[in-house]
């Protein structure tokens, strides 16, 4: 028999399906990632996933909660994928494991598990890692077509698990700073935007390779919007704000401020807009609140990128906005049926 009380029917879309669709939406970006950087990322994703599931199971046991339904909800898996995608692909295995375990155990389960964590676990992991291991976190694999040497899969595995590179190759030889990082350094050296953009590391809009990955995430985001998994408010507000603030500064001083499209397609902007900021648990629930949240995150990201000490602002912008969510929710309650102005 059905439940004892109405409604006796329900729409068969569960949390696990939603999370699964989000994972699916990551595929285009992931495919382009592999295309440009090689399969190392798949290793990190696997590592992170295993760690996440194991940590989740252990924590649920410790907290005396049923393990099976929560493992099946796919939320830990999503966190794992997002962590792997936001840290450098050639990160040593222990970094992936430490980051993921911390995200799941401390920033998710200790706060009460699914639905109760105030901060985005993936971004917490990112923040912890960039503070603890700044050197590792700023060395990105050189995308295919750039650089002199290319590691094959076996060599990548070797580095990830044993930290050894083939003879005669130094880490600096196969990795480089991210496009955003390079931009910052070059600007410090009094470079001119136009000159900087001529560097081989840059492609059509932003970083060579990374811009394609960002485009992949944009595609996935489009799918999420179309299938109603996320609402348009947060991505739109975020991207528009980022575009507008970058655009204004670019118009004012094109020599020292990059184009808004550069901001869109570099770093974690696209991933953040559609996959991180939209995490329902850590974002506001009201439509106006979501707009405000996206706006704040966009502005903060731009400010941190342009004036802050870190190469990308996505993680810290997300975390800072996460703090404001309860406040935003409380102050943006919409008018209800019958309490609005009459038509």
């Amino acid at each position, binding site marked *: *028999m059905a*439940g*004892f009380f109405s409604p006796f029917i329900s729409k068969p879309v569960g949390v696990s399906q939603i999370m699964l669709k989000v994972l699916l939406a990551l595929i285009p970006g992931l495919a382009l990632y592999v295309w440009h950087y090689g399969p190392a990322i798949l290793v990190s994703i696997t590592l992170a996933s295993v760690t996440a599931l194991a940590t989740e199971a252990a924590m649920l046991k410790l907290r005396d*909660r*049923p393990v099976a*339904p929560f493992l099946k909800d796919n939320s830990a898996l999503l966190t794992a994928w997002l962590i792997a995608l936001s840290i450098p692909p050639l990160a040593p295995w222990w970094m992936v494991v430490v980051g993921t375990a911390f995200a799941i155990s401390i920033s998710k389960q200790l706060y009460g598990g699914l639905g109760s964590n105030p901060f985005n676990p993936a971004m917490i992991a990112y923040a912890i890692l960039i503070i603890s291991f700044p050197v590792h976190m700023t060395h990105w694999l050189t995308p295919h077509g750039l650089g002199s040497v290319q590691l094959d899969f076996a060599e990548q595995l070797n580095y990830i698990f044993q930290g050894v590179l083939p003879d005669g190759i130094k880490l600096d030889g196969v990795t480089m700073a991210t496009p955003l990082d390079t931009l910052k350094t070059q600007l410090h050296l009094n470079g001119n935007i136009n000159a900087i953009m001529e560097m081989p590391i840059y492609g059509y809009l932003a970083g060579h390779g990374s811009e394609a990955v960002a485009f992949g995430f944009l595609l996935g985001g489009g799918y999420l919007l179309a299938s109603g998994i996320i609402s348009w408010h947060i991505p739109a507000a975020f991207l528009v704000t980022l575009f507008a603030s970058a655009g204004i500064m670019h118009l004012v001083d094109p020599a020292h401020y990059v184009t808004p499209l550069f901001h869109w397609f570099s770093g974690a902007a696209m991933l953040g807009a559609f996959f991180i900021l939209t995490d329902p648990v850590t974002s506001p629930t009201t439509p106006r609140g979501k707009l405000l949240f996206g706006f704040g995150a966009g502005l903060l990201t731009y400010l941190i990128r342009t004036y802050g000490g870190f190469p990308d602002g996505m993680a810290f912008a997300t975390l800072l906005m996460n703090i404001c969510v309860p406040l935003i929710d409380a102050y943006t309650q919409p008018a209800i049926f019958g309490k609005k102005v009459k038509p």
Partner: protein
Amino acid sequence: MLNALLVMALIAASLGAILGFAAIKFRVMGNPLVEKINGVLPQTQCGQCGFPGCKPYATAISEGAADINLCPPGGDEGIQKLADLLGMEYKPFGSETAPKAKSVAIIDESTCIGCTLCIQACPVDAIVGAAKQLHTIIASECTGCELCLPPCPVDCITMETITEKITNWKWKYPVYALTPAKYDSPAP
């Protein structure tokens, strides 16, 4: 210098006037705390707290002379409310006191002799009757304080617990379980 002094004096005077005005305008009559506490107490007027009624108990609490866990009809919720109101820690009932289900008094009308003693005891005038007449209890006004029991010379008053009926039935708190087992338990 003189100007500054004058300005300061003026400000001080006007602020003083506003304060004075507010003090008169918004003065609260009586002791508001006692009223507030009394508002939380169940008004059963049973004296089980050791005071001759709810108001005296409220006064005692407000003076700090009594604990907040002495009122059985208020139940745990009552203590919680008092704790919230007074910004105190919740305190469970002592060993002698325990929360009590609400009940009403029933007069066995075949034994009642019409002595009016219970009428005098009832704190809320919920018993009607006159000398040598049958007495009866207005159930809707009876607070279940049991004060009418001892004076009755023929012990014709009994207390009846108010049980759940269709008219006062409440939806139950949903059982929040992560296993489908919750639906195996019988419907309330």
